[in-house]
């Protein structure tokens, strides 16, 4: 996973906002990276661009070594489907489908039949084996997010992008989610990139990237303690003023 000199501007002509300004970043296999920064620093845009959800203004994005620039929408979707997993703050499960159906959806969309027990095993891994038949509205927030993680893991993607995965959860559920993500890295060598503004969440990562005004201002190799991150963040916000 790599992005090279990525710039992203929004708006047209005289009224543009530069969200990312020539950002370079590499995410090595089997690492857990946290991306932090104050509001409007471009961390979500970085994630969207790196995941191929949004097209960049200039620069290059490689997903699992494949440059996305010249891919059609269809080819890009296929690449994302097989190589990238997502976990969002708002869970984003399909309300019409049960937990098991949500998990199996990426496989089905790829035209793949799940191996017997694959989905059940996936749900068991996130601790929801007995909830397979429930719809999202019948699950708590933490449970929904666990379904979302199972859905992201099911295709064994090269990278999982998590956008504030604990943002909508209470501390205890949030911790469970972070442990699940950590376990995926440690046990399966999963690569994870997580955007967060919570120092406690970032403390679970191997490395923390600090963003401000669309640029990488610091790159701290972990494990880093939560307090140290909090201090770091406070200093960044101070200097931004």
């Amino acid at each position: 996973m790599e992005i090279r000199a990525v710039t992203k501007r929004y708006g047209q002509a005289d009224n543009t906002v530069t969200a990312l300004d020539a950002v370079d970043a590499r995410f090595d296999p089997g690492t857990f990276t946290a991306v932090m920064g104050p509001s409007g620093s471009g961390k979500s845009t970085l994630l969207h661009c790196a995941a191929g959800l949004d097209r960049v203004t200039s620069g290059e994005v490689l997903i699992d070594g494949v440059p996305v620039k010249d891919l059609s929408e269809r080819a890009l979707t296929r690449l994302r489907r097989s190589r990238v997993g997502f976990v969002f703050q708002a869970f984003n499960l399909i309300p019409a489908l049960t937990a098991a159906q949500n998990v199996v959806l990426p496989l089905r969309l790829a035209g793949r039949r799940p191996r017997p027990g694959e989905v059940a095993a996936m749900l068991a891994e996130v601790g929801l084996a007995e909830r397979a038949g429930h719809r999202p509205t019948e699950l708590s927030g933490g449970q929904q997010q666990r379904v979302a993680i199972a859905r992201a893991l099911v295709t064994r993607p090269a990278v999982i992008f998590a956008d504030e995965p604990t943002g909508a959860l209470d501390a205890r559920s949030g911790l469970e989610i972070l442990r699940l993500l950590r376990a995926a890295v440690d046990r399966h060598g999963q690569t994870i990139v997580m955007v967060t503004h919570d120092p406690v969440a970032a403390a679970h990562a191997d490395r923390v990237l600090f963003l401000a005004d669309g640029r990488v201002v610091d790159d701290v190799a972990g494990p880093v303690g939560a307090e140290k991150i909090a201090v770091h963040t406070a200093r960044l916000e101070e200097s931004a003023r």
Partner: protein
Amino acid sequence: MTAWAMVRHRFASFAGTFVAIALGVAVVAGSVTLYLSSRPQPPERYRASPVMVQAPSVGINDYGEPEIRSWTPDELAEVSGRLEQDPRITAAIPDPFFYVQRQGTADHGMARLAGHSWSSAALGGYQLATGHAPAKKGEVVVGASQGEVSVGAPADEAGATAGLVPGGTIEVLTAVGPETWTVTGTTDGPGFYVSDDDALARASGVRVIGLTVTGDQEQVADGAQARIGGAGTVRAGPERAALEPVEVTRIRWIGAQLLIAMVTLGAFATVFVVASTCALTAAQRRRELGLLRTAGATPGQVRRMMYAETALIAVFAGLVGAPVGSALAPLLARPMTDLDLEPPGFEATWQPAAAGGAILLGLIVALAGVAVAARRASRVPPLAALREAAAETRSMTPARWVFGLLSAAGGAALLAAMPAMATQSKTTAGMGAAMLLITAAALLAPVVIGPLVRLVTAPWRGSATGMVVREGTLTGVRRVASTAAPVLVTVGMTVLLVGMVATINEAAGVDEAADIPAATVLAPDGTPGLSEAAVRGQAGSSRLDTRVLVTHGAATTGEYAAGIAGSAVTLTPEAAGEVGASVGSAITLRFADGAQTSLPVRRIDAGAAAPVVLPRDLVRKHDPDALTSMVVLTGEPRPAAGARVMTARGYAEEQVAEEGDLVDLFLRVLIGLTAGYTAIAVSNTLLMATAARRQEFRALRLAGAGLGQVLRVTTAEAVLAAVVGALLGGAVGVFSLAGVRAAVEDELGRKVALMIPWDAGLGVTALCALLAVGATAVPVLRRPGLAR
């Protein structure tokens, strides 16, 4: 799997699409069932004659039917003789018919078919119930029903034969005049049966010979055709539908006009409503589709899923709608016969083609409606799912512009071309133009909605309600366009249909009043026309109506002709042009009895009473069954059976009123159908749109709005949508109406007042607004605990 799960889980949100398709399919299935049921049938009277022979066809008339000439008596004998040489043909029976009705009864269009020859009873397998066959002139066998009694009144039917027993007498009216016949017997067939010679003498020629046969029908039919060659056309089995009397066919034709209009309008409303409903559903699911995209669905997969969902819904809806439509059709059959829109005995039968076709139409329309929306939806970027606010980015797409402008241009061109069209196609063209313009208005609506909303809400700029409504509509322009669409069709079609009839009536009313002389007339009274006896001895001028076939070169043209006492052979310039005649040239005429003569044209006169005017005696000689439509009296009237005296103006007004009643009926049915369906669509789309915005209203309540304030906002938005639709629909209606008026003015060569039906337009607008307000209040009130 996904499509099925979506449909099952979200059936509530697909319910709008379901209702729209089911109703549309029901309307189309019902009207097509009626239409197909009203196709000509082999007459019941010919049920025992599987093979029949029709006189030669010589051309096509204005209704698109073959023009059949009569056999002359010599030809009839010759053809019959040749047919009877075939041993498999047991009898060749000519079927003459003539006008007869019992005195004191009123004709409902069938009396001119009531008189038959006794031998023709065999064609229907009818037997004598009592008494014996008629042997000479003045004797009759009366049928179980006599054709002229009012249909739908069984009491009359029973009474029709009451007191008629062999040996008694019956007072009747014929083309000759009042007659007293001796009843020699009764039969189970319909009508009056006189001796064969008597019937042949009374009939306007013979155009059908029925055969009773033994052996294989097909072979007999082939053999018969070979024997007679070009002297007739053999019709076997279902082909005998072609032998339906023209009087019956004409009634069917009137009904068919209404049914065709119903099918067309119903199909249009279905296409329109279903397409806009499908588009609305798709627009509402933007976020959900974005979620699918983030889960890894390609645009093609999203599109295919939407097609699959829609197909599922459309098939379900069709399977519900088609049987409902087919089941309701028979309920309309009786009123249609009662109103003389269909001949007696008309029944709506099970028409698999109508039901199947309607289901297919629903499916195709739904898929087409969702196609555009699906294309758009499949391009929803996955990011759209992540952005909470689902405010629309763009309300007008290039496709909307292109199709909107194309429809507008097509509609305008059709209106512009109207003056050059044939009179009969003008109303069709007007309706077609309106349909195109309505489509254009619906597609281009987002362009005008913005300014319109700003204008309408300007007075309430200061209030919170005003602000929320204004911004809510301005950011949801497409949604407003979707909810305004059904109102647009309802108002546009109502304004056009009512206004068109009012404008044409206005023009016609002026027209009629202009040519009516201040005179008294003798007019038929419950009869199809005046008998010879009623006309004879009256001081005044009359016309004897018949039809002649004019041969010119290799072609033959049928023309309406009038016999006027003392008149020379006169043609109107149109008729002269058609048959290539000029003053002094001879025209070859074939009369109702089959006889052909050549006559020199004496005059060509644009004011002639009929396309062909002939001496009255000549017409009477060749058409014994001809009737006189009215006599313009110059002296004191002499009372006569089946005739009444009235002023010319009264007579004209009655004719106009009769036509007006029929037109009113057409209007009521068509508007009821269109407006009924689209009004349901109004509540349907608003219900859908509001239900999908519960979240938004919840936020409004959390911001401190009371339930009453939320209701005020939804009500204002609903009214706004209705007003936008009504304004656009009204504009389209008036614009089309102006085009129709221009065409009418062009035809009449004078100014015609534009009749804008304000009351009808405002009435349907109020109805739509009421439905809209109700439909938006329901979803809000169903969850009153919004602020929890």
